[in-house]
């Protein structure tokens, strides 16, 4: 089991552009959460998807949107990129009914640089 896989690993975009990041959850997991981790900070919750719907959202603007597919994989889209969007974007998967017992499984992240 490869665990949580994210692609791409690194990305450089220009201010104003749009970006799509992808995540495949660990086998058996049905829930995907996205986090933004700025340098020197802990991960910040963006949103969580379950059954192809956004269950909860953190304090992020509407420029951040997502999607979950029937196979539980997920995408994070960011429109109108700002320099401040430069960060490591982490995907975490879990099995909804067991997340209290087992927490989240994290991917290695996508490093986004906006220039």
């Amino acid at each position, binding site marked *: 089991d490869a665990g949580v896989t994210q692609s791409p690993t690194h990305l450089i975009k220009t201010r104003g552009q749009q970006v799509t990041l992808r995540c495949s959850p660990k086998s058996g997991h049905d829930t995907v959460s996205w986090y933004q981790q700025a340098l020197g900070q*802990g991960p910040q919750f963006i949103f969580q998807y379950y059954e192809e719907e956004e269950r909860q959202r953190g304090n992020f603007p509407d420029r951040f949107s997502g999607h979950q597919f029937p196979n539980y994989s997920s995408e994070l889209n960011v429109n109108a990129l700002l320099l401040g969007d430069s960060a490591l974007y982490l995907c975490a998967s879990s099995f909804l009914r067991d997340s209290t017992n087992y927490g*989240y499984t994290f991917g290695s992240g996508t490093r986004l640089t906006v220039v």
Partner: protein
Amino acid sequence: AQRVTQPEKLLSVFKGAPVELKCNYSYSGSPELFWYVQYSRQRLQLLLRHISRESIKGFTADLNKGETSFHLKKPFAQEEDSAMYYCALREKGNNDMRFGAGTRLTVKP
């Protein structure tokens, strides 16, 4: 609002010394608390969860509701414990897991 504070960004101890990584939280309800660890060039991974009251790699963490703390402790630190440690809190039934800023632990030989 939920908030997690890890007051020490850096912590350095010698091998064999006791180590305590502090975590304080602000939340009025019943929190679910976790410690995550990130070793060099590895992904973030779950270390401990408060509900299990377990010891993992010699680490333990006790939830103190009176002091709203969930400090991580190990009586004898090892060099392989050197890593970034994050305390995380989630409101029961909520999906927003809040992380602290992290503490970088260095265990010197």
